[in-house]
């Protein structure tokens, strides 16, 4: 996978932008280029299916433009961050989103921080190309908010490890080839001191993936049962029992989401933005007078939601501006997850409520009733789907309750609670 020489040759930001634009215009299907240059990202989405984009993606990734700031041997172009950022902005109208987010944002940071050179050369290029898709095996039924109390065991067997336990809330596990895995290697150490970090191949007999239906009737998550699953010791990242420290690196992606300065994806899982609320409310007012935008209470509620969404976005801008100016972001960077998740729930609930009684029924998707119940989400109004999905926003990636405690302690400096189990062996601490 050698990147095109004209990209590698670019030195300044201007040269890089020119070379990247040139590359994209030459290597992207003309209809996409046309759409991008006339109507931007929105127009691209209109002419391009997800499947088409996936099929073309390896060409993009092979150019190094997916991770231009990474070193060339790992799949990047070795550009300085400022150069990469300039190119990113220039390519925005072409709408070339990165695939394999958990590979890029979880596995890669761990490998950069604690992996061996062999591991990086082996795993990073296929991550970039989306040839090997990744997921995360961290949470367990008994270890949610208290992730470090996890129980999945890894037992050494010569130059390999045998993994036994149960993981849950595994996004995209059924589509993934590999996972980053935390497992307990020393039950007699305090909980954070007996965990090791592994890379595990999912296509093997000891791994069973069961889809988990959520309250909207859809499958976003999986349970993963590990029963003697095999991990070669070469797939261990960092030293034995040092996995919690390694995980901090992979969790940076999640922390970014918590900080609100990341992609902001979590803010929008489940539904559209507040601007949509105004349009929906106007439609509703036209259909059933007095119950939409023409109801002053509805109007006031939507106005505040829209305002809060503006302030959410302004706050993220402040964080970005601070980081760009080379300063450490302040307390404003800590509130994104807690505020964004709550706000999104309120926006989505308001959207569904604007449907009135029709949020409570929809046409059955099949004639046979048991088939219809299986297909519960088919035909469900999008606003209802969004409202149901958004109930998880305040749970996934750290509950609002836990995150508020973290904000109070780490940002405001309030004292920690006394923990009678501090420093005690994991084995002795009640769990589950």
């Amino acid at each position: 996978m050698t990147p095109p020489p004209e990209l590698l040759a670019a030195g300044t930001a201007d040269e890089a932008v020119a070379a990247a634009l040139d590359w994209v215009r030459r290597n992207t299907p003309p209809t996409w280029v046309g759409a991008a240059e006339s109507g931007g990202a929105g127009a691209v989405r209109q002419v391009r299916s997800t499947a088409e984009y996936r099929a073309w993606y390896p060409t993009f990734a092979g150019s190094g433009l997916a991770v231009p700031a990474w070193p060339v041997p790992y799949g990047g172009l070795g550009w300085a961050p400022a150069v990469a950022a300039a190119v990113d902005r220039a390519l925005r109208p072409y709408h070339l989103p990165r695939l394999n987010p958990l590979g890029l944002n979880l596995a890669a940071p761990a490998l950069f921080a604690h992996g061996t050179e062999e591991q990086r050369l082996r795993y990073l290029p296929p991550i970039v190309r989306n040839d090997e898709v990744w997921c995360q095996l961290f949470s367990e039924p008994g270890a949610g908010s208290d992730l470090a109390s996890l129980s999945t065991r890894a037992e050494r067997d010569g130059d390999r490890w045998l993994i036994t336990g149960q993981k849950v809330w595994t996004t995209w596990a059924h589509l993934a080839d590999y996972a980053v895995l935390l497992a307990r290697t020393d039950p007699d150490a305090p909980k954070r001191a007996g965990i090791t970090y592994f890379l595990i191949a999912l296509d093997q007999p000891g791994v069973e993936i069961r889809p988990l239906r959520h309250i909207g009737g859809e499958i976003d998550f999986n349970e993963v049962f590990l029963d003697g699953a095999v991990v070669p010791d070469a797939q261990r990242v960092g030293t034995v029992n040092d996995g919690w420290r390694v995980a901090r690196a992979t969790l940076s992606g999640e922390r970014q989401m918590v900080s609100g300065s990341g992609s902001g994806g979590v803010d929008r899982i489940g539904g559209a933005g507040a601007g949509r609320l105004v349009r929906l409310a106007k439609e509703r007012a036209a259909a059933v007078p007095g119950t939409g935008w023409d109801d002053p209470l509805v109007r006031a509620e939507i106005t505040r939601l829209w305002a809060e969404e503006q302030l959410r976005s302004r706050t993220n801008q402040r964080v970005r501006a601070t980081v760009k100016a080379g300063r450490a972001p302040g307390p404003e960077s800590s509130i994104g997850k807690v505020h964004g998740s709550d706000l999104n729930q309120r926006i989505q609930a308001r959207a569904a409520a604007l449907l009135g009684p029709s949020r409570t029924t929809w046409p059955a998707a099949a004639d046979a009733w048991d088939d219809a119940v299986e297909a519960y989400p088919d035909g469900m109004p999008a606003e209802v789907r969004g409202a149901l999905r958004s109930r998880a926003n305040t749970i996934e990636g750290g509950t609002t309750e836990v995150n508020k405690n973290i904000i109070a302690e780490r940002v405001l400096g309030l004292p920690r609670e006394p923990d009678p189990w501090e420093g005690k062996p994991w084995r002795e601490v009640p769990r589950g």
Partner: protein
Amino acid sequence: MDEPFGTDVGDLAATVFADSCPPARVRELMATPAGYDPDAWRRWARETGLPGLGIPAEYGGLGLPLGALADVFEAAGRTLVCAPLFSTVGAAVPLLLASGDAEAAKQWLPPIAAGTLTATVALPDAPDGGPAVRAERVDGRWRLTGRVERVVDGATAGLLLVVAEAPDGPGIFAVEDVTSVARTPLMSLDLTRRQALVEFGGVAAVRVGADGSAIPAALDVARVLLAAELVGVAQQCLDLTVAYAKQRVQFGRPIGSFQAVKQRAAEMLIKVELARSAARHAAEAEADADERALVAALAKAYCAEAAATVAADAIQLHGGIGFTWEHDAHLYYKRAITNDEILGSSATHWARVSDHLDRVF
């Protein structure tokens, strides 16, 4: 009737529902076309008199007051019992009784009390444009034309009471030949409370009562029972949450020992108890018509909002498990949302309360 409901009807109902419609059975019935177990309904009629709770003794019922019915509905809300309880006992019977139509009562109340007939009320969404169902006299018989988008148990009820626009204003019309009506089962947000689209293509109907003057008060009775059901929903959400918080351990402690959980649980309790005060008062208050309308509106509005909030809190405090299809929390959340939309949303009923204040102060 071996074991009729007595003074502790609420407790007895709770026992009956818990025994014969536990959560696992609710899950089974959710997947059946009817959405409930007709055999169980008839058995309850024989053994407890459930369908005839509010029907006077002269028509084969137990003639219990609204307060006792409310206790039964609270119990039904706690278990999400799958049955035509609201449609038949909560809506159709009060409407029949309020109509003052002795002939209709004589004809339909006894089979309802016996569990051999279920009924429902088809009420078009107001104020969704013009009258959704028109009643016209053709050749000396009433004929109904139009559609009602959502009728609770509309696909299974043996008797449809339709609120339709007659030439002299709104009236109650009964359709006994339900096969003459196009009934399309709908997928419902709340799978434990089934609804159907009902379309009338000039079908024959009989008029019930002299005019529609009894409709508003009868619908308020149904609203009070929905409110009572919502109290059960909220109470069960609180109880599930408290039980989980005692047993779920994180950071070496039951999560219920953390103040973040305690504060929220206490707030849930406050809402549950205020909701109960609202529903009980509406069911038991001896008051004039104006006051009865007020307390019904207040109860429906407050209980629907409280139940939805408490159910959302229950999902939250259960963490990930509360977000799964397998856990029952979402069923309660969806019932709360659904009840809010039946017989007028909270917004509508808050406006009624507001209009009352406008008049009295």
